[in-house]
């Protein structure tokens, strides 16, 4: 069974966001990293980019395929995880910790409520 932490919120496209932190880190779920296997490259977004919820913001590449990553909420990208350029495998090893991809400063905290809870996401991948 893949790990789905209770404190996070999710998109059905397998991104997570941490609403308890500001700015909020975003990554891909344990389930997603297990499906992709072997992330080999992360094409990060540009810091300072304004995005809307559901906008495609960057691409991560595994040996198998390239996958688009979408913004869970609207806001400004304020940081990207520099460690991933040297060690993209962090996404596989620590999807909810060292494998975060970017941080977003949410424009409207109410948007978190529109995202899936851990329970709903678990059902979605069940």
């Amino acid at each position, binding site marked *: 069974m893949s790990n789905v932490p209770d404190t996070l919120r999710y998109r059905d496209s397998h991104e997570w966001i941490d609403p308890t932190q500001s700015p909020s880190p975003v990554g891909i779920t344990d389930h997603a990293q297990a499906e992709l296997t072997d992330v080999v490259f992360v094409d990060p977004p540009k810091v300072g980019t304004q995005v809307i919820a559901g906008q495609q913001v960057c691409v991560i590449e*595994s*040996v*198998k395929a390239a996958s688009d990553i979408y913004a869970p909420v609207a806001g400004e990208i304020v940081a990207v995880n520099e460690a991933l350029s040297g060690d993209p495998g962090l996404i596989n090893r620590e999807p909810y910790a060292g494998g975060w991809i970017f941080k977003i400063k949410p424009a409207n905290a109410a948007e978190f409520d529109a995202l899936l809870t851990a329970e709903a996401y678990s059902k979605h991948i069940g």
Partner: protein
Amino acid sequence: MGARMVPFAGWDMPVQYTGIVDEHKAVRQSVGVFDISHMGQFIVSGSGAEAFLNRVLTNNISKLQPGQGQYTLLLNAQGGVIDDLIAYRTSEREFYLVVNASRIDADWEQLESQLTQDDDVLMANASDFTAGLAVQGPKAREVAAAVFGSADSFPEHNTILVTMSENGPMWLCGTGYTGEEGFEFFMPAETAEAWFRKIVEAVKAAGGMPCGLGARDTLRLEMGYPLNGNDLSEQRTPLQAGLGFFVDLDKGDFTGREALVVQKAAGLPDKLAAFRMTGAAPPPRPHYPVVFGGQVIGEVCSGTQSPSLSAGIGMAYVPLEAAALGSTLEIEIRGRRFPAEVVKKPFYRRPAAP
């Protein structure tokens, strides 16, 4: 086995079981087993079989003694590649051809169309009732000994053994598509399940694992082996694909020969070049534009992230001036250009034994 299935040439095929990189490394370091039941098998026999095959295939089949095999190509009249295949001589007047799944019908059609009334040749298409497994890796020999009970049954490189078991006949071929030692094992489809279980068990006991199409692709590409449909097509000749070694222009006439002679004299318009990404870059993938001197000059035919080299590798048809070893290409990925260098094949060489 927890496989992820994808449609491939009309078969549901496992793309991966545990993960492409793990499976890839298993084959490089111990052993892996692939389901290759989708591949096609033709039996061509008769007193005219040798002459017929020499007339339709590029390599010189007369060089084969019974029990030996060779890589060869089936061309159209324009010299374009219909298929690349392995031809084994199973007896003085009988040959076993192993062809690509996606080309079974095209191959059969081409062979039949070249047959005349005067040829004493019998052709049989065994593809639909033949299943197959490829066991590949440094421990493939160990697996063969465990499964067949004798190390002597291991087919050496480019040889074939036809034998019989309680499950019926079996064709053991000393070939593969990975660059590792190994064998490909064909059997009647109804006996496949029993063999599959036995072999997967032996592979696991040797520290290996079942492998899917994903690892098959990364393994063959690290060796620079072409994949028909990606790197070979009816629009390009084996000379352009760098397969001249498997074309015998001196053996007498064969389909496509004239076109090859003309092309050789005129000079090749382009050539399949092997390239390696030179810095951090997304993996190159098929159809990405290839840039030389600022101009888009072609597209990636095969491309992937090499698990052994941890770098992007690929092949593309490029004009000769761009194909020189060391020349700099760029691969355009989502609108950005990443540098690559033309390198020698294979991309990966097995480390020398310590």
